[in-house]
């Protein structure tokens, strides 16, 4: 150990440090931040230590901090002299042997490699590691790091935080040395002011100006405080900064002390960060030992002391006046300002408080200059900021980006979007003082002013991504619950106001809120914001105000429909599966009834919830599985296949007629009301079924010759055999629904005629019109749209299909067309302009098509269709696309490259989407939305014309069977409410007798899958491709249910 007093001793320590960082032998450094140890880095370190000892290897072993990509921990750095530094990811103790084997032979295990670093800009120094290992991507090419600029995190994860010599080796304490030698404090303050560095704690006040105030204050004692009481839930950059590089903080503070005239520094740090406390303690000791802290620093006659105080768990202590009270040994209740701490702070003395991250920017600004700093970032917000990117993103971790980077870069390019293919709904910035920014606004640049314009703040840099499974009302409630419990209680608006806000929000999440409550919540939030004493209270309503501003529809859903679409507010739903089911089937009930061996009751339960259980059991997109709690154990319960099994079993038995009678027995007495349903697709059928059960005389009109709509005329037989649908229609006919076929309303029958003859009309005409792409060559013979093609096949009409078919599109219609064409003996190529994961088709269907021999071409946009001399199709030309910017759907926009590829083919099927037949809608005199759908009240499905209701694809655009049926069911309920002036829907259901307690021990069996015919066999025929579950399998599935409907303390 050397006490540094002059340049030569400084240089000696610098050389010693470099020899540790770049020794003449391989060096292994294990990432030992808290996130590393939380992933088992301790064990990895010991495994290396033991193995190196056992083998007697000449390899250095060190501990380092976190390199930022927390999702890939434990991280291990490996450096072999002359080679680049390689960062290995997800290293386990048992990997140690193999890694050492590789190192001793001059290599690294490529399968574990995350990236390589050839040289590193430590800002205060430049380190060249070496070259080679080109198979491993450069760190700056890894999506997570692309665009990151590490100023604050310049040393994190690369040097050993426990060794001051390594810090000095990368240029540490040079800035301090320079400042002390120059002896020009005012010049330093001018430099900091010139850099426009703004406080990184949230308020964004200019650091240089704050320092100037403190310097100007006359007092025998001044204090510098570092606020490391990082209390924002969802933000942890300060912890990482301190754990990975404690000396940068000390250096910043010592410089700050020198230029402002303070001689005492205090770091107020959270007790919840034991490792950071420990690292700081040892860094302070080391700095003292080396003469960089304490008396006569660097022999220049300047004294500065730093002490550490642990906070005891109070978020409000992030507020500077509360923090000062806490340091004085008092309860952390904020005091009014003025007086400001710069005049009267700690113990009444002038005091300056800066956030941890602010201090980390000091040394780089001094070494590189103010204009170097302002080169990065946006004009009003210079430099970088570290953000903790957490929540529903694939790559979580700490990200340091120039200020002004758009939010979508964080969420999609760096974070890789939401996991499990879900869509991002919002990003919460600024913690409990910030707000939620909706997905549509992710173009917003991240800087102080832009976020404030949206009602949020940058705060300390927390960035929590929310996806479709997060309820924004619940998020607002969560933050108010947090600030409510962290409010110090001193001022009335915060103490009582937040309590009343929470009470109001609880009414929302319980479904008890009214429109008046929404207005009250708004008024109350503004009042708390405007009148509270400190920043906590003034900003606490932000999460409520921003969610009410950007997600008002979710609040309205909770009020008007008593519905939480995300399924978070448990009081509003029976179970997560029921809540996600568009038909709101009571899934736990039929599973339990079947489990109790009451298959007939189970069928009754199913069929009273959903009149087409066998059809939907085959083709539904099963949203019920997305939030099944069983996923926490293994996989979701296969609910769809159980109701398919129950229905199939009953249809095949002789009990079906008797069960139809039981359904008829539930019918309410005739009401004398007449209702017309236009369209016999799934929407219309569901609506007509319930209307008839409710006692209304119901007539369904359809232009086709049979009922079923898309189920009958589009879905190919191999997915849904026609006889299954016919069996289900028996029930709908049996309860008295009348059908008028071959009659198209609007053409064969005018709307006014219908209007005159019925008490209510429900429109559910579906999306039968194929969207058309305007390409050269679409007029050629052999270019056919998908829906008419599928319809012709379903009607057994002859279709002219060539030998080689190109299908353009990526939705279900494209896949259905491809698989149908394969069955008709053609060769098929599917051309889609985006990536595979962006396809809207059900993934199982795409896989099946591929297995059956369809070729897939991705990232290819149709360019033109080339004809032959006979007027037929010769080939299709496509342009290669690459992925560009993220669009508003969170997918990358395809950008044409100019490279053209030609596919020889004789038929082109265009499956680029379906729309509503607008002519009909226009003729009906109904209001139309911009998207070309009918405008309805979201809650009642009423159109702009009295007595007319609409549902299904005509209001939502092309969707799927269960969504369509959900609208039909809801419409029947709303029409009945209106016609009868009472809520009678609930009377349709009998009391079912079944166990309502949670299973003490749910089945441990894994999920049962259905079996498919082999691809080569099924592609030859239109016979059903997927067989259902066996009785035993269905029973075991039912036993796997965790019964979320049976809650603790219920029944």
């Amino acid at each position, binding site marked *: 150990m050397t006490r540094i007093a002059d340049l030569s001793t400084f240089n000696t320590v610098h050389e010693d440090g470099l020899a540790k960082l770049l020794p003449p032998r391989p060096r292994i450094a294990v990432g030992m931040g*808290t*996130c590393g*140890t*939380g*992933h088992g880095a301790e064990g990895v370190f010991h495994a290396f230590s033991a193995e190196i000892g056992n083998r007697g290897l000449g390899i250095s072993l060190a501990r380092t901090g976190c390199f930022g990509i*927390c*999702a890939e921990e434990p991280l291990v750095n490996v450096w072999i002299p002359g080679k680049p530094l390689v960062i290995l990811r997800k290293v386990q103790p048992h990997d140690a042997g193999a890694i050492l084997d590789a190192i001793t032979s001059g290599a690294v295990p490529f399968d574990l490699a995350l990236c390589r670093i050839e040289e590193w800009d430590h800002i205060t120094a430049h380190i060249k590691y070496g070259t080679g290992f080109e198979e491993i991507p450069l760190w700056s090419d890894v999506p997570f790091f692309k665009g990151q600029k590490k100023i604050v995190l310049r040393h994190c994860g690369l040097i050993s935080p426990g060794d001051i010599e390594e810090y000095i080796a990368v240029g540490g304490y040079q800035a301090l040395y320079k400042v002390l030698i120059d002896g020009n404090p005012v010049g330093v303050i001018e430099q900091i002011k010139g850099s426009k560095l703004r406080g990184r704690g949230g308020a964004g006040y200019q650091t240089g100006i704050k320092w100037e105030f403190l310097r100007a204050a006359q007092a025998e004692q001044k204090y510098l405080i570092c606020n490391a009481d*990082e*209390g*924002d*839930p*969802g*933000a*942890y950059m*300060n*912890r990482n900064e301190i754990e990975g590089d404690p000396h940068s903080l000390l250096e910043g503070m010592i410089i700050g002390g020198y230029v402002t005239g303070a001689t005492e520094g205090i770091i107020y740090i*959270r*007790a*919840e*960060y034991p490792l950071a406390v420990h690292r700081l303690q040892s860094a302070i000791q080391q700095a003292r030992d080396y003469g960089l802290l304490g008396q006569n620093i660097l022999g220049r006659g300047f004294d500065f002391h730093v002490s550490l*105080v*642990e*906070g*005891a*768990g*109070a*978020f409000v202590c992030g507020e500077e006046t509360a923090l000062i009270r*806490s*340091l*004085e*040994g*008092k*309860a*952390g*209740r904020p005091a009014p300002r003025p007086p400001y701490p710069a005049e009267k702070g700690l*113990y009444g003395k002038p005091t300056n408080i800066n956030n941890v991250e602010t201090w980390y920017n000091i040394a780089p600004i001094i070494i590189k200059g103010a204009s170097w700093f302002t080169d990065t970032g946006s004009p009003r917000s210079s430099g970088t900021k570290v953000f*903790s990117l*957490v*929540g*529903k993103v694939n790559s*979580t*971790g700490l990200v340091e980006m120039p200020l002004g980077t758009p939010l979508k870069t964080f969420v999609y390019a760096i974070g890789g979007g939401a996991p499990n293919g879900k869509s991002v709904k919002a990003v*919460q910035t600024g*913690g409990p003082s910030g707000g939620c920014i909706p997905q549509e606004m992710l173009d917003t640049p991240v800087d102080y002013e832009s976020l404030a314009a949206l009602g949020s703040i940058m705060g300390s840099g*927390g960035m*929590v991504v929310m996806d479709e499974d*997060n309820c924004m009302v619940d*998020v607002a409630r*969560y*933050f108010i*619950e*947090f600030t*409510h*419990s*962290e409010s*110090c209680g001193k001022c009335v608006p915060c103490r009582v106001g937040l309590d009343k806000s929470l009470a109001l929000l609880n009414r929302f999440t319980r479904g008890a809120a009214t429109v008046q409550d929404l207005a009250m919540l708004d008024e109350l939030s503004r009042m708390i914001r405007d009148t509270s004493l400190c920043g906590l209270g003034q900003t606490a309503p932000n999460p409520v105000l921003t969610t009410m501003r950007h997600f008002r529809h979710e609040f309205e859903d909770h009020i008007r429909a008593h519905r939480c679409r995300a399924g978070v507010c448990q009081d509003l739903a029976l179970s997560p599966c029921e809540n996600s089911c568009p038909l709101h089937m009571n899934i736990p009930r039929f599973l339990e009834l079947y489990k109790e061996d009451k298959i007939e009751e189970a069928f009754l339960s199913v069929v009273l919830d959903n009149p087409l259980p066998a059809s939907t059991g085959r083709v539904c997109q099963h949203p019920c599985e997305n939030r099944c*709690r069983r996923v*926490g*154990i293994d996989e979701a319960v296969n609910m769809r296949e159980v109701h398919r099994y129950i229905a199939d079993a009953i249809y095949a038995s002789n009990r079906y007629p008797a069960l139809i009678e039981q359904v008829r027995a539930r019918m309410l007495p005739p009401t004398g009301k007449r209702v017309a349903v236009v369209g016999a697709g799934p929407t219309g059928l569901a609506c007509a079924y319930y209307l008839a059960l409710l006692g209304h005389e119901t007539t369904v009109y359809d232009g086709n010759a049979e009922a079923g709509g898309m189920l009958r005329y589009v879905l190919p037989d191999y997915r849904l055999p026609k006889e299954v649908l016919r069996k289900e229609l028996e029930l709908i006919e049996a309860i008295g629904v009348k059908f008028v076929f071959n009659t198209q309303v609007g053409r064969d029958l005018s709307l006014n005629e219908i209007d005159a003859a019925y008490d209510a009309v429900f429109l559910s005409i579906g999306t039968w019109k194929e969207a058309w792409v305007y390409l050269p060559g679409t007029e050629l013979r052999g270019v056919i749209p998908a829906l008419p093609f599928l319809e012709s096949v379903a009607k057994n009409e002859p279709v002219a299909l060539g030998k080689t078919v190109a299908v353009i599109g990526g939705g279900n219609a494209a896949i259905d067309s491809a698989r149908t064409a394969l069955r008709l003996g053609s060769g098929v190529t599917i051309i889609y302009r985006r990536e595979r994961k962006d396809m809207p088709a059900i993934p199982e269907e795409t896989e099946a098509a591929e297995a059956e021999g369809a070729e897939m071409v991705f990232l290819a946009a149709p360019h033109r269709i080339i004809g032959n001399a006979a007027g037929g199709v010769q080939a299709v030309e496509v342009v290669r696309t690459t992925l560009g910017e993220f669009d508003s759907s969170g997918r990358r926009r395809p950008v044409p490259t100019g490279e053209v590829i030609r596919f020889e083919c004789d038929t082109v099927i265009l499956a680029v989407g379906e729309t509503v037949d607008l002519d009909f809608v226009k003729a009906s005199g109904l209001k139309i939305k911009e998207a070309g759908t009918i405008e309805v009240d979201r809650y009642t499905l009423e159109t702009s014309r009295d007595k007319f209701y609409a549902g299904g694809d005509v209001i939502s655009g092309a969707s799927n069977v269960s969504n369509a049926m959900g609208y039909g069911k809801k419409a029947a309920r709303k029409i009945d409410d209106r016609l009868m002036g009472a809520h009678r829907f609930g009377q349709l259901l009998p009391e079912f007798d079944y166990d309502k307690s949670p299973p003490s021990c749910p089945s441990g069996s894994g999920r049962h899958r259905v079996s498919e015919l082999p691809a080569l066999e099924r592609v030859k025929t239109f016979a059903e491709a997927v067989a259902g579950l066996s009785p035993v399998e269905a029973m075991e599935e039912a036993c796997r249910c965790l019964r979320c409907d049976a809650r*603790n303390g219920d029944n």
Partner: protein
Amino acid sequence: MTSSNEEIDRVIARHDGRPGALLSMLEELQQAHPDKYLPVETLDYLAERTDLPRARIFSVATFYALFNLKPQGEHTVCICRGTACHTRGSRDLLERTKLQLGLKEEDEEGSADKLSVTTADRQFTVRTVACFGQCALAPVVEVDHAILGHVSERTLDREINTLKRGGRA
């Protein structure tokens, strides 16, 4: 059982009895107590020796979430209620843990804030923390000071059952 007065004197001496060191002194005294709490007798003695108003010491000891005025259970399960953990289901974990340990709402201290409940047999204390700063591991639970990341109801059940059987987490 209380910390001995000599011990309190030692802690006071270490901080020269400075009023500003009250938080640090309380932290050390709580840490030194076998049941990890601050008995009123300890606070009384501290007031006597430091000349700080008793009401002020009590005010401080009840203001900060870290201080316990009741004996803590042998094992501590601390569930993070940070934003990242919340969005990844930490409320369900909390409910599940309380259910598993037979704790009901009415056992909770004070209002809904800074939850800290101890089972009647003093085996377990269930607490919440505002944020551990382990957001990348969400949801996070700390069991007897060991951080567990990506906790599911199943892994938490297993941890608690191990502790119930007398094993270490």
